[in-house]
């Protein structure tokens, strides 16, 4: 009894325990009489500093601490999809059954239903040789996703037994593998430490775009499968709506949505909206491919810190099955603030703006868990999977020079800068064409999938926007009337691109999702108008007269008036645009 570890000090979510000589960093611990979950973050002599993932009010020095011989982990298995978890993977609907409206502490509920039986179907035979991550069998997890039960990372050898098709619980042994270290049992469910990335065996270049149905993203600043993107913006600039749009429409197999320190009502909105929304590709509710991690702003700050890792570990697990996964993390700033708060409690020396000096390396570690991977099975079949990370950043005062944005920029290759002036004019998505960029080269995909040249159209549209930016500076000084007609047309066409093309209403039935074909058809028409208008104005027709053409209003409205599956109408409309210049 004398050598049992016990608490010696409590300071908010950070507590100290002594007699911890045998524990290791990252170990999970159970704190106090109520067995609150915690994690060891520093060790000094015999004293451990522990961050507790729940409220510590009422805990006293002298209460016991139990060290578990494993790091903080998530449970991986079927049943993750369609679930809603808190930051340390406790299922919120089960918590509701136990504690009602308000979340009480000390509730330990397994993340995956241990009693539910799943239909397991083996895809390998006894005697077969298997390598790490080889697929042993399949379980239909939701209407959209088939769960693959894989060989754990360390095992390879031959299968001495595989379960017959039938109902199984996640804790059931479904295979035995004879490895060099002896025969191992494999269950459906397993654990993985949240802070250790699941290794990528072969990395592929990220050059296939994630199609999101958002024109400003797909056409101007694409993100690739396996890439990382950041959306920074002050409050009210539309980060969350953009994240929701991406979660709804992007063409991946699985969505992990992390509400990290955000509003409770926003998570409720996702919970109400996603089951009702249909995926445009499969026509099934998008909830069937989604898992939610909701650690709202008033839930414990330490669990907020963990939520990001919980989410990315789940994503990597599905990637290994051969799925394309996208993570929406809203917002990484709240996660960084959680780091700051904990480091403050530890009295660590602060670096910029009070953030700990390790902020940059933590951000880097997180975004580096994105990637596109290929796994080759023993029989030579290949499967590809990816984790795409899309992180929202909430810089104080919308100032992009603050530490979280500047460090995030170093690790992402797509940057969608949200702009307050655009948001004020209700131009959404308020991703600004001047401050945003994408380094992913996805032109090969577009070449394969479209008859129009994305690269050409992209270059021309960007040129007009750049030229417009330069001209706007002059306009601010002398007014648009002083410009030559040729430049006035550039201004007007730039406005056409901004309002008629880039602006896209998330709440419009027709325009919420825009297919890649429609995107190119639309910009093609605008650029066609630009070319014709330029030629016409060279013959002496004034710009103001050209902009009075009835097609102008139609171009502004085409996004709403022509649907995704009405490609023929665009061809027709382009003809009308061309003809209107002949008269």
């Amino acid at each position, binding site marked *: 009894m004398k050598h049992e570890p016990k608490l010696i000090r409590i300071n908010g979510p950070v507590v100290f325990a002594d007699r911890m000589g045998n524990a290791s960093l990252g170990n999970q611990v159970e704190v106090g009489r109520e067995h609150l979950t915690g994690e060891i973050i520093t060790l000094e002599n015999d004293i451990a500093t522990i961050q507790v993932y729940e409220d*510590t009010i009422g805990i006293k020095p002298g209460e016991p601490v139990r060290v578990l011989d494993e790091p903080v982990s998530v449970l991986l298995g079927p049943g993750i999809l369609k679930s809603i978890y808190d930051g340390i993977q406790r299922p919120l609907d089960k918590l509701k059954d136990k504690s009602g409206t*308000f979340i009480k502490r000390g509730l330990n509920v397994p993340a995956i239903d241990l009693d539910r039986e799943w239909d397991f179907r083996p895809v390998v035979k006894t005697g077969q040789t298997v390598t790490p991550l080889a697929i042993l069998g399949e379980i239909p997890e939701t209407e959209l996703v088939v769960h693959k039960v894989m060989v754990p990372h360390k095992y390879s050898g031959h299968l001495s037994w595989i379960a017959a098709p039938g109902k199984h619980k996640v804790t059931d042994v479904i295979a035995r593998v004879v490895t060099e270290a002896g025969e191992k049992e494999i269950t459906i469910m397993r654990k993985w430490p949240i802070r250790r990335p699941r290794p990528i065996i072969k990395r592929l270049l990220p050059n296939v775009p994630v199609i999101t149905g958002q024109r400003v993203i797909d056409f101007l600043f694409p993100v690739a499968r396996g890439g990382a993107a950041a959306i920074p913006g002050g409050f009210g600039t539309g980060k969350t709506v953009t994240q929701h749009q991406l979660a709804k429409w992007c063409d991946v197999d699985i969505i992990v949505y992390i509400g990290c320190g955000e509003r409770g009502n926003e*998570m409720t909105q996702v919970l109400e909206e996603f089951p009702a929304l249909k995926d445009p590709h499969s026509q099934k509710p998008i909830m069937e491919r989604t898992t939610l991690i909701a650690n709202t*702003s008033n839930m414990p700050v330490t669990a907020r810190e963990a939520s990001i890792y919980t989410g990315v570990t789940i994503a990597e697990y599905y990637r290994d099955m051969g799925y394309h996964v996208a993570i929406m993390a809203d917002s990484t700033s*709240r996660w960084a603030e959680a780091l700051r708060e904990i480091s*403050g409690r530890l009295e660590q020396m602060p670096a910029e703006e*009070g953030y700990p000096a390790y902020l940059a390396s933590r951000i880097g570690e997180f975004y580096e868990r994105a990637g596109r991977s290929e796994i080759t099975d023993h029989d030579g079949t290949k499967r590809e999977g990816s984790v795409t990370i899309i992180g929202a950043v909430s810089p*104080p*005062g919308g100032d992009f020079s603050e530490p979280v944005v500047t460090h995030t920029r170093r690790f992402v290759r797509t940057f969608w800068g949200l702009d307050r002036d655009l948001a*004020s004019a209700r131009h959404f998505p308020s991703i600004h064409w001047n401050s945003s960029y994408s380094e992913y080269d996805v032109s090969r995909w577009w070449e394969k999938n479209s008859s129009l040249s994305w690269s050409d159209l992209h270059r021309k549209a960007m040129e007009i926007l750049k030229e417009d930016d330069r001209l706007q500076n002059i306009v601010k000084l002398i007014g648009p009337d002083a410009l030559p007609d040729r430049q006035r047309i550039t201004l007007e066409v730039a406005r056409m691109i901004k309002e008629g093309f880039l602006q896209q209403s998330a709440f419009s039935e027709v325009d919420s999702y825009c297919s890649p074909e429609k995107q190119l058809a639309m910009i093609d028409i605008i650029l066609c108008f630009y070319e014709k208008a330029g030629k016409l104005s060279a013959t002496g027709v004034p710009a103001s007269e050209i902009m009075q053409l009835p097609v102008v209003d139609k171009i502004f409205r085409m996004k709403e008036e022509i649907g995704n599956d009405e490609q023929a109408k665009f061809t027709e409309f382009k003809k009308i645009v061309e003809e209107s210049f002949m008269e």
Partner: protein
Amino acid sequence: MVTGGGKIYKELQSASGPIVVVDRVTDVAYGELVEIICGENIRRRGSVLDISEKRAVIQVFEGAQGISLRETAVKFLGRTLEFNVSKELLGRILNGVGLPLDGAPLPFKGETRSIYGSAINPVVRDYPMDVIETGISVIDGMNTLVRGQKLPVFSGNGLPHNEIAAQIARQARIRGSAGNFAVVFAAMGVKNDDAAFFREELERTGALENATMFINLASDPPEERLVTPRYALTLAEYLAFTQNMHVLVIMTDMTNYCEALREMTSARGEVPSRKGYPGYLYSDLAEIYERCGRIRGSSGSITQIPILTMPNDDITHPIPDLTGYITEGQIVLDRELHQKGIYPPINPLPSLSRIMKDAIGGDRTRPDHAHVANQLYSSYAAVGNIRALAAIVGAEELTDVDQKHLKFGDAFEENFIGQGKDERRTIPESLDRAWQLLSILPAESLHRVSKEEINRYYSHDNQFTQDGGSD
């Protein structure tokens, strides 16, 4: 919390501002409530901020004046700060720590709750969908308030935020229902006049009997301010989710709350983050603002209108900034509009209501509502650019469309944003007014509304489109 409770320690190690340290304590819990006995009848309350095996650091709530190291005793009470809530508290005026200011005793019956509350499980929340009609055009039309929303007013010193909050409290009603309505008012560090203004306002309109006021004045100890909103919200949660009432919580001034928090954390010697505020200001504010909304299984709701004055009118200051990241939008008051004599001086451009989109339109308000709101935003944003240009090249040099925008801008500010302090406009009235004003602009420049809507509502012939047209 199980504890020995009631243990008294007669010697303090140190006292510095609101922080008191007691050594050689045993069996004391983190967050435990403490009574500080300074003399015969002077008892103050505090709570344990940091506890180790030998030492307890205590934060005093009710002012540290008169604490001495030798004469003061500290009693650990074995529970956290609690508040006895009941419906009887309606009609009462209390101080910042829940003690009566109106002479009557506190109700004996009630339910005892920790003032710190617990996080609402997100799966239990119900998404806010019922529009509250405030009768103020610029709010109802462009930044609609929804039952269960938290919508702060960002103001500045000398701007009429109190009048606006009072007008909302007076006029707010749900379209098509009455319901049992209550107001919980929390004042933190406010001036005597402001407290008197709200008290009189509630009395004058007869709303006081359905209201509870918690008043911490500027001259009261700042430590008290840290618990005032928590007392108010504990009562609000009880009224809303146990008694099924619709509760409007007005909290003013959140800036004073944050200042008090900064004062306290600096006394504790914590590492400061931006502008000296603690690194956990966001989490701390979230604990307050998130105690709001609707939950399944209860017909009540909590709608919050926190008021804060932006230091130096700076919206990027940490207090409005972090608030804006937590709340579901904001109503921003504008000094320039105020100087033009426009009441309420709400600038719609930086204002926002995040959850209006699902609550408006259709039968709930009117099908064209979302489009009209968008069009007003778009056109009024254009007015700003054109005014800047006109200031340089002169209004005469502008194109015809731009000139019309200038005319629209002035008429919009005067007739849509501007209205009387007792004027109540219904939502259809506000929208009709918006269409009349938009009709100043050429129909071709209205891209955010549909053609059908233009055909139905756009009219060249109304009070604003005719020359000199104004009320």
